[in-house]
């Protein structure tokens, strides 16, 4: 996993709540057996019109959002299906951080495994960021994971909290399977004490 420390990037606003993973990456693109190449299908049904043309009214198609790496969006982002293809698509498209008032559990977990930082900020602050992103051309934010802050150059500053271990995993790009395997012996002892009928 790529480590995440500090990141400065352009902000895109997706002003919707309850965006589900079916929207982030529709099912017709889940048939691939690789982890890569999902970015071009991100938000497919919203980004493209039925005839395959770009939908000019969709936020990510706004030229102002080109090259955005920080997504600001509404509550309960990533609800629905557990498909990890959703964070794969977001990361492949170029996003490194998503800021929202809340995230669905499985989605947030999946992001973490892919070096994609999900930041929970209070609704008011998210709204403030959304407004700034809309009002300012080339609006940028700096995310500092070492200090757990989100700042812009115009006086916005917010602190966020994140589980210590998750922060460490992101900062160091840890291989958590490797970490678990360090406890092999303990796993074997546990296994030897399981009830007999559970195979």
């Amino acid at each position, binding site marked *: 996993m790529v480590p995440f420390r500090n990141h400065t990037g352009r902000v895109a606003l997706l002003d*919707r709540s*309850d965006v589900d993973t079916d*929207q982030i990456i529709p099912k017709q693109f*889940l048939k691939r057996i690789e982890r890569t190449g999902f970015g071009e299908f991100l938000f497919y049904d919203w980004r493209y019109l039925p005839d395959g043309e770009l939908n000019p009214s969709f936020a990510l198609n706004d030229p102002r959002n080109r090259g955005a790496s920080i997504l600001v969006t509404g509550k309960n982002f990533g609800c629905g299906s557990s498909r990890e293809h959703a964070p794969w698509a977001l990361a492949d498209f170029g996003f490194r951080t998503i800021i929202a008032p809340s995230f669905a559990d499985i989605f947030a977990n999946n992001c973490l495994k892919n070096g994609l930082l999900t930041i929970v900020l209070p609704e008011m602050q998210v709204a403030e960021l959304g407004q700034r992103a809309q009002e300012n051309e080339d609006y940028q934010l700096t995310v500092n994971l070492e200090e757990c802050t989100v700042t812009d150059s115009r006086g916005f500053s917010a602190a966020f909290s994140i589980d210590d271990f998750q922060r460490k995993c992101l900062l160091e790009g840890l291989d958590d*399977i490797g970490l*678990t395997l360090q406890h092999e012996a303990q*796993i074997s002892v546990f296994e030897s004490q399981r009830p007999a009928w559970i195979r």
Partner: protein
Amino acid sequence: MPTTLFEKLWNTHVVREQVGRPSLLYIDLHLVHEVTSPQAFSGLRTSGRGVRRPDLTFATADHNVPTTNRALPIADPIAATQIETLRQNCREFNIQLFDINSAEQGIVHVIGPELGLTQPGMTVVCGDSHTSTHGAFGALAFGIGTSEVEHVLATQCLPQTKPRTMLIETQGALPEGVSAKDLALGIIGQIGTDGATGHVIEYAGEAVRSLSMEGRMTLCNMSIEAGARAGMIAPDELTVRYLQGKQFAPKDGNLDAALSYWQTFKTDPGAIFDQVVEIDANTLEPFVTWGTSPGMVVGISGNVPDPREALTAADRGSAERALEYMALAPHTSIEDIHIDRVFIGSCTNARIEDLRAAARVVNGYRISGSVKGMVVPGSQNVKRAAEAEGIDQIFREAGFEWREAGCSMCLGMNPDILNAGERCASTSNRNFEGRQGRGGRTHLVSPMMAAAAAITGHFTDVRKWQFK
């Protein structure tokens, strides 16, 4: 100290606790399907790791599979590759696979319980959010992502942060014609699609106790639609009766030991939950979703809501967008909404009891001339059982298509999809935009409600149905 069912499951599965780190949880049963597993297996290969417990891992092909003639090759080459990849992975890593032509094939959350793989007191995971279904047996069952699938394959463990607990306590009994699906939709309507985020739900009370095992699975299945990590119901005599004799359930000498072990999995009187929600089951009615999220739901006697009456600006915006997508006008009576398609299937409502309930409504009637109906049994076992009872005949004679088992139009990864603009009464669990096909409009309902709508061509209160 009195503890909850969840805490008992948690405490009996912690391999290792570490300060400042998630606990390491042991996984008793790992279910695998074709869509969320290929990248996990290739990850194992890349890192030179094996599968620690192939004997605790079971696979099936369900999401992508055609529901028509299984003897024909799969038309979609990418889907065919994914299924073939699953085969190769299972062969290479020695995992039992219920392949598309096996007698046990079916939707992963239908076959786990019906084969007796899912048992009380177990931890169950699958790369699929509706793994919450298995909680109906008093198991801690939750969906995981593909990286976690790889983690479980390699270690049979998963680092987990302890979730919070929520008790959903039902008062009273469900009225006639109101099913487990309506209870689930009623709960989501009340607490919202993120109402249980970060929590494990335990369902309790008379209305839950009196549900069949199938009904309990329907209820737990929809927990994820309320944002919950998992949903669970304490095992009782019904659970035991369901499991007895099932292929992988404990037998002979093991049965007594298993029974007394299972009995320990219940919440002690006085145990504390982080949140308690009360649901008055007496007042519930059959529900129909009107929007593009399962929380956008209203009783059959109600109307499509007016977004202008929403409490917050954000809710107003979502409701307006949903109504536009669904092509519905505010204040339309739900019974006046006409449909084009009916889908009876999915891991929520394609078990034998669901098909029986729908068939009872359909019996003696013909499907409306303007409606196309499809019944997709949840598994090959369900299909055979239904055929043995003549249920397939009832559906066929009414004009429904009778299909092979799989996820089918629940998510339309196979050719079973809605066309743009088509409106569908569906027994599945998600009415997201485009879920059943781009531009398709999904209304979530119970099997009985779907059946009634198929006959009349519009949503119809099944409580007033004339059974033949």
